Every structure is written in structure tokens, then in C-alpha cells.
């Protein structure tokens, strides 16, 4: 048993641990997700976070130690954000035709998501820096961190809120749109991408190509709009 503990302490101290744990856990979670017919509740991000987080807490492994390895995956978020230009480019003729409607919908939806989060958080008596970290939660996590930093929030919190928002959207979109009788794939995908950014877009891509493409457009638009508007909004409010 002590041998095992020593081995664990050794393995957990190398960057290899965080990288391997992240990739292996995600691959298994993705297989399980497929096995359950891509059911929303089997979301691979959710279960990867729960499993890895659980292991860190139970074994007393620190997050920085985990991140030393996981950062090699995290770093790819930057080029992934740049790559969002690709789905926009592919749909450029539709964008030109429907650009105004899509931009207005992204703007109104983004304001509704951020505004209702801040208003509800304020009503629930949450601290100010938590409120400021909640505001950019509908923007993809790496960008949300930057926005939170600019408006006086906590970047690490903003990232977690963004990821949770992504998962809530990916988990519940099917039922919410069913309830509202929204049938068009483009509209469903766009709404999911606007509010639940990359995780919502990943879910949309897995369900339907049209929904995925529109979610990609929405994700890109939300990045551009929120980065411009949120700092201004908090500047006026403060």
C-alpha cells in the first residue's frame, strides 16, 4: 500500500499525469457518451470534470500540479478560437444574407443571458466580484476570462461559470426547445451557440450539421459582441 502511495505521489508530480488523466478520462467519457446515444446527461465534459476533480480532491493533488500537464490541452483553446473563423467563412453567403438578423439575435440573446445572470445574482445576494465573473459566462471560457479580468471579476471563476453554462445549455437545450416548440435546426443551434458557446456548439455539431454550423456562427458573434459590450456596460454602471 505504501508502495502504491509512493508511486502515486511520483506520478502525480510529473506533468505527464495531468495530460494523461485529461485525455484518458475524456476518451472514456466520450465512448460512454456514444454508448448512451449521445444523451445530453452523459455529456463528456461534465463527467470528465467530475471524475478528474473527484480524483484531485480525494488524493489531495493540487490543481496547479494537475494543470502543469493539462495546460498542453488548454493551450489549444487559443488556436481553436482563431479557427472559429472557418465555420463563419463556410457560411459566408448565408451570413451576408441573414447577417443583420443573426447579429441582432446574438446581441439580444447575449444581453438577456448576461443581464438575467447579473440581475438574478444580485437578487440572490451574491458578492460583487462573483456578479462580475458571472456576466461573461455565455462567452467561450478563454475569452470570458479576459473579459472578467477587464470588468473586475475573477478570471478563474469566470472560466468555471462559462464551462457550467456550456454544460447546462448542452444538457437542457433539447428539452427547452421542445417545450418552446422550436423546430428549426438553424435556430436551435444558433441559440445554443449564443448562450452556451463552445460546449453548446460541440453538442450542436454532434446532433445536426446545420445546428452545428449556426452554433459556430453564434459562438463567433458572441465573442466579438461580448468583448466589445460587456466592458462598456460595466463602465457605465460603475
Amino acid at each position, binding site marked *: 500500500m505504501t508502495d502504491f502511495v509512493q508511486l502515486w505521489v511520483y506520478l502525480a508530480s510529473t506533468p505527464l499525469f495531468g495530460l494523461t488523466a485529461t485525455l484518458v478520462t475524456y476518451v472514456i467519457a466520450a465512448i460512454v457518451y456514444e454508448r448512451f446515444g449521445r444523451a445530453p446527461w452523459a455529456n463528456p465534459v461534465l463527467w470528465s470534470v467530475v471524475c478528474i476533480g473527484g480524483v484531485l480532491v480525494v488524493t489531495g493533488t493540487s490543481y496547479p500540479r494537475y494543470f502543469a500537464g493539462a495546460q498542453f490541452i488548454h493551450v489549444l483553446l487559443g488556436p481553436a478560437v482563431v479557427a472559429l473563423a472557418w465555420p463563419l467563412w463556410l457560411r459566408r453567403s448565408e451570413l451576408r444574407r441573414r447577417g443583420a438578423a443573426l447579429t441582432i439575435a446574438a446581441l439580444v440573446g447575449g444581453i438577456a*443571458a448576461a443581464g438575467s445572470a447579473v440581475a438574478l445574482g444580485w437578487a440572490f445576494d451574491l458578492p460583487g466580484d462573483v456578479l462580475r465573473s458571472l456576466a461573461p*459566462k455565455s462567452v467561450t471560457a478563454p475569452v470570458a476570462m479576459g473579459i472578467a479580468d477587464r470588468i473586475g471579476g475573477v478570471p478563474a471563476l469566470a472560466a468555471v461559470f462559462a464551462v457550467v453554462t456550456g454544460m447546462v445549455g448542452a444538457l437542457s437545450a433539447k428539452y427547452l426547445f421542445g417545450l418552446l416548440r422550436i423546430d428549426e435546426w438553424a435556430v436551435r443551434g444558433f441559440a445554443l451557440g449564443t448562450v452556451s458557446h463552445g460546449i453548446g456548439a460541440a453538442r450542436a455539431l454532434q446532433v445536426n450539421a446545420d445546428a452545428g454550423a449556426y452554433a459556430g456562427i453564434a459562438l463567433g458573434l458572441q465573442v466579438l459582441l461580448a468583448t466589445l459590450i460587456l466592458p462598456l456596460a460595466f463602465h457605465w454602471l460603475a
Partner: protein
Amino acid sequence: MMALRGLAILLVLQAAGEALAHAFALPYPGPVLGMVLLLLALQVSWVRAPVQAAADLLLAHLSLLFVPIGVGVVTHLDLVSSYGVRLLAVIVLSTWVGMAVTALFLRTLLPSAAEGPCGND
């Protein structure tokens, strides 16, 4: 090789975006500016194939990239234990409000958007 070349292009544009943001003190994060630069760069035909290969790879596994940040929730377990239920309520409700508003708004703006109704999901 194509995907690797594409990744190189994406990283160069991200770096260019970071440099622009830094040099002109712009309010946009580097990757966002890189995305705008890529939209311009895609006008050039030889950029497209490598970028497509890299974008397909990165965007197909986009959700994996959120796992390291998501695990960061363990550093805020104190916050979760004191505000967890309220935070979750705020996030769930505002997510639904945002999605409903976006979807209903877009549907009225796009009367011609009917691309075939679907049964479930």
C-alpha cells in the same frame, strides 16, 4: 501534414492578434483578433485547405479543450459550498432565459428559416 500546417497558420494569427492587442492596447483578446485576421486571410486560396484541416480537428474535439479549466472548480470549493445552490440557480435560469430569448427572437426575424421541422433533439 495539412492539419499541422493549418495549426501553424492559426498560431501565427493568434500571435499576430496578441501583438496587435498589446501594441494598440485594444480591448480584444489575442485569439479574437486572430479570428478576425483569419477571416481576412481566408480570401487567399492556399490558406483554406490547411486551415480547414486544422479547424476540423480542433473544433471536432472542442469540448475536450474545456476540461482543464472546468476541473478548476476544485480551487473554488469554498465558494461552491457557501453559494453553490444560488450560483447553480442563477446559471441555469439565465441560460434558459438567454436561449429562449435568442431562439424566439431569431425565429421572428427569420420567417423563412424553416429548414424542415424535426421530431426530437
